[in-house]
């Protein structure tokens, strides 16, 4: 159920984004990409928590907002300092996305069994 809702929201968002495009200035595109990565990580974390009956709405929503913001700020700070700090966010969120997907897969497989 949660998967269907998430995919529906995503498809709805993409449809609205195509019909009413959100203009993203080129200079901020890297930060938006990081924020989106953090958002995907939060969603997968939320699905994992939901499937394991440990979902907490406050943690989920605050995690989505704070992680997205911090990821974008990290990228911005890295640009100001001349360091590729955004790579830290990419590695952390990337590996967490993999971990969450693996856990979701295991939980779903156990439920099927």
């Amino acid at each position: 159920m949660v998967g269907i809702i998430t995919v529906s929201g995503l498809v709805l968002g993409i449809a609205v984004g195509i019909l009413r495009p959100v203009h993203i200035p080129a200079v901020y595109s890297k930060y938006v990409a990081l924020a989106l990565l953090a958002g995907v990580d939060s969603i997968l974390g939320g699905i994992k928590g939901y499937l394991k009956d440990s979902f907490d709405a406050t943690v989920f929503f605050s995690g989505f907002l704070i992680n997205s913001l911090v990821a974008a700020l990290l990228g911005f700070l890295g640009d100001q300092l001349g360091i590729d700090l955004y790579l830290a966010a990419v590695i952390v969120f990337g590996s967490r996305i993999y971990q969450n997907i693996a856990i979701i897969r295991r939980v779903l497989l156990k439920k099927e069994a």
Partner: protein
Amino acid sequence: MKPLANPPIRVALLMFLVVSFFIGLFLPGQARIIQEMKMTYQNQNPADLVRVIKDLQQRKDELLTVESDLSQKLSAYAEAADDVDAQILQLKKETVSLEEQVGGGTLVGPGVRVVIREESSGASPSILADEDLLLLVNDLWASGAEVMTINGIRLRDTTALYRAGLTVRIGSAATHMPLTIEAIGDAEDMAKGLSFPGGALDLLNLRRIGAIVQKVDLLRISD
């Protein structure tokens, strides 16, 4: 009253819906900006840029040759100023040259065919403006087009192009959308000249006007 550890299932699902909606909302914009960034000079294939620079240098050399020819012509006029026969001969030569330029007969050769279609459906249909067409035609001339037609109507150095309602006026002739532009010249150079970042095709894409560029081995353009 002690709060519930977990929110009702509907609240949780609503949160998933809202968060995934916002992620989805930004994805097309982000994808679009990344595509646009790929089109900038910094992200161009160096081999393409070298080719364009070489083409421009070749064009510059050709223009220098034309300048030299014109200087010689000027000298010939000056020398023939007192000689009527020489003047007539010079004018005849000039006439032949001008006839070649405006095209007296049928010309064949490789080139490009550009088909332009307006988007007439949807909430905001796209309309080809005068300046879009002029930019496209001028880009073709600049990329080495030797002769050109729009829907079979031959373009000359002084041909005026403008929109008049649904009609496209080409000099004294009139035609309608879609437009098929045929240009004889170096097809590779012309295709490259049109697809250059910030060029005519970029502008047409921005205005949601479809333009298909096709290289043609043998085009036939008659007067």
